[in-house]
């Protein structure tokens, strides 16, 4: 595949990238919101628990942006993009199955609920959030085909993914917690991430 047709196929994948960026935006905020619920039984639901969660999400995202941006330089393709989604799904799994064990250990080791919640947030959320953060710059790379439009493309992607975040926040706090167990919501999001990853990988294969 020469350079020209590769750019061409990436551009055609635009709608997929937008859809997947929306999905990752949705899931990031939904998990963040559930994070408050997950930590509350051990550390309470005070303002510092939210401080821990939000700061860890911010640090993780910033690290993810850095790594994703770096990786986007090396022959960007939908297949690798899909891999990020699969990894993010794997990264969320421990929250479903080992959150209580992890928090038991942190609770036993640290008295102060501020630092307890900070460490617990790091253990539970840092890795999956960083991986989800990698998606943002990589999406930009997949959709940009010339520098003139790069700002516009980035703007469109931020628009879609931040809208996804808003919807994820709203749906989770208004309805999902009323309808489902937390683990059910998390497992559903893991499934969606897996499907998103497979979709991207399959589209990439079809193209080769």
């Amino acid at each position, binding site marked *: 595949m020469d350079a020209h047709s590769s750019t061409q196929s990436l551009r055609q994948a635009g709608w997929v990238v937008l859809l997947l960026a929306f999905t990752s935006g949705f899931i990031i905020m939904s998990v963040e919101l559930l994070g408050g*619920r997950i930590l*509350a*039984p*051990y*550390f*309470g*639901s*005070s*303002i510092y628990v939210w401080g821990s969660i939000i700061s860890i999400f911010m640090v993780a995202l910033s690290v993810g942006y850095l790594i994703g941006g770096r990786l986007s330089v090396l022959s960007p393709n939908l297949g690798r993009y899909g891999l990020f989604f699969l990894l993010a799904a794997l990264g969320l799994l421990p929250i479903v199955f080992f959150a209580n064990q992890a928090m038991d250990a942190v*609770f*036993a080791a640290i*008295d102060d*609920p501020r630092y307890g919640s900070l460490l617990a947030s790091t253990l539970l959320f840092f890795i999956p959030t960083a991986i989800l953060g990698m998606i943002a710059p990589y999406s930009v790379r997949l959709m940009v085909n010339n520098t003139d439009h790069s700002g516009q493309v980035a703007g469109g992607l931020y628009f879609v993914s931040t809208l996804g975040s808003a919807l994820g926040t709203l749906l989770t706090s*208004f309805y999902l*917690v*009323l309808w*489902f*167990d*937390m*683990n059910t919501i998390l497992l559903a999001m893991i499934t969606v991430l897996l499907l998103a990853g497979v979709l991207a990988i399959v589209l990439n294969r079809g193209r080769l």
Partner: protein
Amino acid sequence: MNLLRLLLAAIVTLPFAIEAEVIHQERSIYRNIEVQQTRNQRCLVFAVRRDDRRQTCLNLDEPDRIVFSYVRMAFGGLLLVPNPSSILIVGLGGGTLPTALAKLYPTAQIDAIEIDPSVVKVAEQFFNFKTSERIKVYTQDARVFTKRARQEAKQYDLIILDAFTGDYIPEHLMTQEYLTETRDLLSPAGVVVANTFSASELYSYESETYKSVFGAFFNFKLPGSGNRVILAKPSGLPSKDQLQAAARNLAPTLTTLGVAIEEFPRYLTTRADWDTNSPILTDQFSPANLLKNR
């Protein structure tokens, strides 16, 4: 019917609203706190624009008399454990309960949990609440306190759960897991008293959750009061006769507080007046604040 209730509520609260003077105001990290005073009554108010919530009131002429019926109802717990030597109170408010219980039981050890340091300060400044060797306040989240206390194998004869401001409910203090941790803090014949919500869909959920942890409990409602108090004793509930005997013993001291304890036994019932098929609240599923508005 609703209009009538609204009207009635307005008539009851109007004189207070007109005369009340704000003598102290502060904004804590959790809420806006006001102390309002009329001629002979001083109240702790968690101010919400549309609807102030009076948390506790002090009768300035007779400071020992308990003003709020739900606080008086909490004394119903003493029918099940007449002589508690260790007491845990979750949610301080103005400190009415610890202050009164400390007077009733001069040797009892009393621990109070309050998340909001400003509430503790206001209770001390304006509501005669005093900490001491045997009255301690822990300024922390009740769930965190409970988990730690369980590690340290603390035991209480009487645990009073009153962490509800009436507006927002800490959802992690409503779950089966929290109540189980609380039950683990009870001494062998210990008793849990919970001031809970009596209206909305939450009523059934909450009732079933308590039942799942404590087994059968006394459901306690007084006519004219909008509150429901749960009285639970995992080691077994006393009979009506035992309740009446306990009430007779407690009556002389409790009457001075304005608590008509002898009236209480006939309003205690184990009959379920809620939907017993209701799901229970767990750490995984606890949309208490959403249910409260349904």
